[in-house]
């Protein structure tokens, strides 16, 4: 390190990989899947639009799971949809994260006694952050995303073990 250090300008610095926050790039460019299951989607769309501007966190919607880092499950998960969600989650490349948005995705919400609604998306896929509310305001969703970023910051290893 010593030799190279003196040959480069002063704004270049050297460190070891595990001393740097490993997912610095990922946490600042969480591309979320353009996907929603119910009315929480309206708040999700609002969060993505100019007033709340998800883009300033580097979060842009991707229309395919294969380019997504984050799945925001926005809304009621029926048994019919649950199979699709499971498949979409499987199509996302690692590392991948899930935010459960709103009461329905958290625990079934108002449809908890329905024959057709899964009581919580965490029954089929692992969830990183739960955002409460019915629906959560964009501020709440952004708070959830920032919590996820904090979580990513604390992940120590470059390669996360598959879950």
């Amino acid at each position, binding site marked *: 390190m010593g030799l190279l250090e003196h040959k480069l300008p002063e704004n270049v610095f050297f460190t070891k990989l595990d001393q740097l926050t490993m997912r610095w790039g990922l946490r600042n460019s969480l591309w979320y899947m353009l996907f929603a299951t119910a009315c929480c989607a309206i708040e999700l769309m609002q969060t993505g639009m100019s007033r709340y501007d998800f883009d300033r966190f580097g979060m842009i919607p991707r229309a395919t799971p294969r380019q997504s880092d984050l799945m925001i499950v926005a809304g009621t998960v029926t*048994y*019919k949809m*649950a*199979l699709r969600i499971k498949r979409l989650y499987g199509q996302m490349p690692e590392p991948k994260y899930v935010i459960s948005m709103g009461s329905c995705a958290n625990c079934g919400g108002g449809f*908890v*006694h*329905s*024959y*057709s609604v*899964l*009581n919580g998306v965490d*029954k*089929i896929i692992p969830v990183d952050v739960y955002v409460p509310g019915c629906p959560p305001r964009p501020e709440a969703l952004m708070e959830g995303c920032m919590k996820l970023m904090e979580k990513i910051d604390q992940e120590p290893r470059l390669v996360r073990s598959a879950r």
Partner: protein
Amino acid sequence: MNRIEKIVKMIRKEEPEVLLRTEEEGQFPVLRVERDRVVPVLRLLRDDFGFESLMCETASDRGDRIDLIYHLFSTPHRETLVVKTVLSREKPQVETAEDVWKSANWYEREIFDLFGVEFIGHSDLVRILLPQDWVGHPLRKDYRPAPEYHGMKIEY
């Protein structure tokens, strides 16, 4: 004589053997028709009385029977008419109204999905809302869901 009485009189003239009954319940005049003649009566209502629109077709589980309910609307007369017919709960079958109003297609798929009514002559009688491999018809009063669906426990 109001218009509903006129309609009943005309139908009696055209189809003398049909059992008809009018009811005064709820918002709209109700015409009860026997099951086997309901589609000819609907066609007559469309062609001769201007009910060119099927607003809604639905069913209701009354415990001992299933009521099939058609809401018809006539734009020129600004008029709504309800046609009801009774199906047996054990084997609910009726002729499709798809040939009278195309929009009946999806309504009847929904009724099949949720009540298990079989529409004879329907072009594509498969479930419309629930998954194709779902067991049972949820709007039946005695419906109990299966314990699980593809490994997911159904907590009902």
